[in-house]
């Protein structure tokens, strides 16, 4: 498919241009700053919509990478890096998620952030550049650059506009992620030299046949970087800190998009690149995921701080995602992918809700609330819906994802893990509903809560798109699944099938080799 416009590049760099424009706006005219940032993010979102319709259009490489751009970038010495970007069914929805959540996040800052508005907006837009760039990179070097660049604005968002412990949280976030990604960088370079001369094209790396020992080490390095980002138990400790201290918009983006970088990394890189190692480590990863689900749920249950509770629920939800993708069958991976989007929508919404009450009461302690439903009926309704979505009630998006994940895991070798993980569904109902009950129902005792105002029009406007998606994805997930399916199939083939390919090829090649008397078959297991 030939294309005229470099759509993805335009998409990636529109926020950057927006950020540059903001540089020249007076820092005291908050209205202008917010409007420009909002306009840019909405524009980016609108421009990302043609991707949905354009992807898998007739005549295209169904399920493959589309909207390709490949421009030589650096060629020096042994390396060749290209500006190589493209999109498949897996990254498509994550890009949309990023562009979708951004205007919502920006809109949520209108009253919450009154200081250093200019810097905040610039940080948010730069973050968007990093997020889109990460998802569309097909060149591993480019991917790494975006992956790292993304840290910088997030570090500032947490560190400057965060809560009391912001500095600790920001530095922890940065260094945790940095250690993982630097080890990944080493693995990436090793991989490059293993692949021989060429470039950092991910498609080229997919074709590599690596020996199991190399695969193990490479997988460990990649998996560590991604596991920190996901975050998987026991590497999750940065997340509650970062989430609790980050400002609302930061939490929303962190939960909705940044955590998906980790799971996306597994789907795009760690698993398809190192299939044998994936098979070897599946029990370990599944165990950690299940521990993550149960442990994080239990910890969430005893949290006093609503935001921390939501943060721990994130760890549990991401555990489901990991379990699903490591089931490595259609249902599991589809469920995992859907769950990524669902988590983005529902946890994003939860953080917004926490933000709303925090803005009103400047506290997030569950004990400070109670009976808010009487005072804030609209808020209560929305909170309820989002809570249901987070629990995974049928009819909401959460159900579809979790169900597919568990189904997939049950069908695969991870059956017993699925059984334990199911308890996580119950636990999530326990901690979410319990929290909801303590915050919203009961007597309206605290006099400070008796004067609370319900959501205003702006806040309702922020929530409506999310609520719409909660139901839409819950009732009719088909469009999402359909456009993902071919790419997911490819990914599963790639992550699983290599072993079979490796077995088949020597068999085919055997007659030829036997002529030269070289026994080959036993070399490949």
């Amino acid at each position: 498919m030939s294309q005229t416009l470099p759509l993805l590049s335009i998409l990636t760099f529109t926020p950057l241009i927006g950020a540059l424009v903001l540089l020249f706006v007076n820092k005291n005219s908050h209205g202008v700053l917010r409007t420009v940032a909002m306009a840019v993010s909405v524009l980016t979102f609108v421009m990302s919509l043609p991707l949905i319709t354009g992807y898998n259009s007739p005549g295209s490489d169904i399920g493959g990478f589309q909207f390709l751009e490949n421009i030589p970038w650096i060629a020096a010495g042994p390396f060749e890096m290209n500006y190589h970007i493209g999109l498949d069914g897996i990254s498509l929805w994550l890009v949309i998620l990023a562009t979708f959540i951004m205007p919502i996040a920006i809109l949520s800052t209108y009253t919450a952030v009154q200081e250093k508005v200019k810097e905040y907006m610039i940080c948010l837009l730069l973050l968007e550049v990093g997020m889109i760039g990460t998802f569309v990179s097909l060149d591993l070097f480019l991917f790494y650059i975006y992956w790292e660049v993304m840290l910088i604005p997030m570090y500032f968002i947490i560190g400057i506009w965060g809560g009391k412990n912001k500095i600790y949280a920001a530095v922890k976030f940065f260094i945790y992620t940095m250690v993982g990604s630097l080890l990944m960088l080493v693995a990436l370079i090793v991989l490059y030299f293993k692949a021989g001369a060429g470039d950092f094209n991910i498609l080229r790396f997919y074709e590599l046949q690596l020996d199991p020992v190399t695969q193990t080490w490479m997988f460990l390095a990649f998996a560590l970087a991604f596991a920190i980002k996901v975050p998987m138990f026991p590497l999750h400790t940065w997340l509650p800190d970062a989430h609790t201290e980050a400002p609302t918009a930061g939490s929303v983006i962190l939960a909705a998009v940044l955590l998906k970088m980790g799971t996306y990394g597994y789907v795009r890189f760690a698993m398809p690149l190192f299939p044998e190692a994936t098979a070897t480590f599946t029990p370990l990863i599944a165990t950690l995921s299940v521990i993550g689900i149960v442990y994080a749920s239990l910890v969430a249950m005893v949290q006093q701080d609503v935001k921390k509770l939501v943060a721990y629920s994130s760890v549990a939800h991401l555990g489901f995602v990991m379990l699903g993708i490591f089931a490595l069958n259609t249902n599991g991976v589809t469920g995992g992918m859907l769950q990524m989007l669902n988590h983005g929508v529902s946890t994003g919404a939860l953080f917004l809700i926490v933000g709303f009450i925090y803005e009103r009461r400047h506290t997030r302690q569950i004990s400070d609330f109670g009976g808010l439903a009487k005072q804030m009926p609209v808020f209560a309704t929305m909170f309820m819906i989002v809570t249901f979505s987070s629990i995974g009630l049928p009819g909401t998006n959460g159900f579809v994802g979790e169900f597919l994940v568990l189904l997939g895991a049950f069908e695969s070798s991870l059956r017993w893990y699925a059984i334990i993980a199911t308890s996580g569904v119950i636990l999530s109902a326990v901690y979410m509903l319990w929290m909801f009950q303590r915050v919203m129902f009961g007597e309206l005792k605290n006099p400070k809560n008796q004067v609370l105002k319900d959501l205003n029009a702006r806040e309702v406007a922020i929530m409506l798109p999310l609520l719409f998606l909660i139901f839409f994805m819950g009732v009719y997930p088909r469009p999402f699944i359909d456009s993902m399916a071919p790419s997911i199939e490819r990914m599963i083939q790639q992550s699983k099938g290599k072993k079979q390919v490796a077995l088949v090829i020597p068999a085919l090649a055997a007659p030829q080799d036997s002529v030269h008397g070289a026994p080959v078959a036993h070399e490949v297991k």
Partner: protein
Amino acid sequence: METIAMPAINLTVVMPEIILSVVAMVLLLVNVFVPSKNKAYLGYLSIIGLAVAAVSVVSGWGPAVSAFNGSVVQDNFATFFKMIFIISAALAILISDRYMAQEECNQGELYPLILFATIGMMLMASGTDMMVIFLGLELLSICLYVLAGFNRGNLKSNEAGLKYFLLGAFSTGFLLYGMALTYGATGSTKIAVISGHVMNNPTIASNPLFVVGMLLIAVGFSFKIAAAPFHMWTPDVYEGAPTPMTAFMSAGPKAAGFAAFIRVMIFAFPMLQANWSELLWILAVLTMTIGNIIALSQDNIKRMLAYSSIAHAGYALVGFTASNAEGAAGILFYMLSYAFMNIGAFAVVILIGKKGEKNGDVSDFAGLAYKKPLLAVVFTVFLFSLAGIPPTAGFVGKFYLFSAAIKSGYIWLAIIGVLNSAASVYYYLRVMVYMYMKDPTEEFEWAGATPSFVLCLLVAVGATLVLGVVPGTILELAQKAVLF
């Protein structure tokens, strides 16, 4: 009766050195005979001199030309390094004027001294005879001793000058002794001849005279590039020396040390690569780790940058250990990037500093982002680059150094390197924490940036970003420069 054959004299090979010598000497005279209180114009004149020299250096790009009976060579390797020296000298001069005025130093001799130091560095990069390298080193060192103690009224500066002189002299002794022993073992001080001798006599690897000589040379150079455990002089000298001179010392002379080190090690002892790679491996790990760990606990920003500069020498040694073309090219690229980012960082430190070397603690940067946002952003770029975070020159440089090590099979070295890099993030972030996340403690008097400062910062920040985003051209040049 035998006639002594006069070696062919080819002055074009040493033209940059000649130009700089003339400029420096003229400036000395101008300084004496032109009665003017304000000596800043000398700085601009020396920059013009450097620019002319740069033109002459660049015109030498191409096939290698040897001159003076093989004592000096004009090759791409030397050319690349000479450009690094000129750039660091020019940037250092740009930030000297205000500092020297603030500290009430007499600037008259400052600029000629910087130029003489530059000539010394150039000779180190282009020398192919141990004696020329040694003379270049001495010329450089003597200028640096004076420059380190240039702030005569300041005790710390005096201490820096004296300490540098004593330890420098000591290390020069090692180096010279090593050269003498090598001469004894091989019968020549010419690198090409030594190399030939080593090739023809593989047994020389077990000749104690030669091995000790080689080791002593390595020790001597390690002193110059401040590799651990020969780094002890660095923090005190860097902290005490006038800040612009610290910036200069950490960029130019360090690069010069590497230039000579690479030249001697790769040319003279190519056969012994396996032996000295082990040595360099240990040196690299020690240097990175010690530099980074001690930097973690520094409160004074100059001292912090001093330890960080030790760590950066360690990263460069990783590329050296790899001893392949990528590693050497990586060092070239890294030294160039380092000149920009480190001098840039020091420029910001100077701008914040007050008379008498006050205001030099990390905590003095509190709230800088809200008092001087642009300056804070510029400093942030330098710090991220020093930490090796994309899209900056520091990242690309480290990428090449570490991948060179991986290519040669030193995966563990690369892993230790990246972990060090991650640790270093902490102390660079700490400065940013103060700049962005703490409220200003007191109102600080902003002396204002002079145009020369602005120029220096613009060049440095521009280069740091350009080398980070589109490093292709420079990397290619670096690759060509190491095709010996």
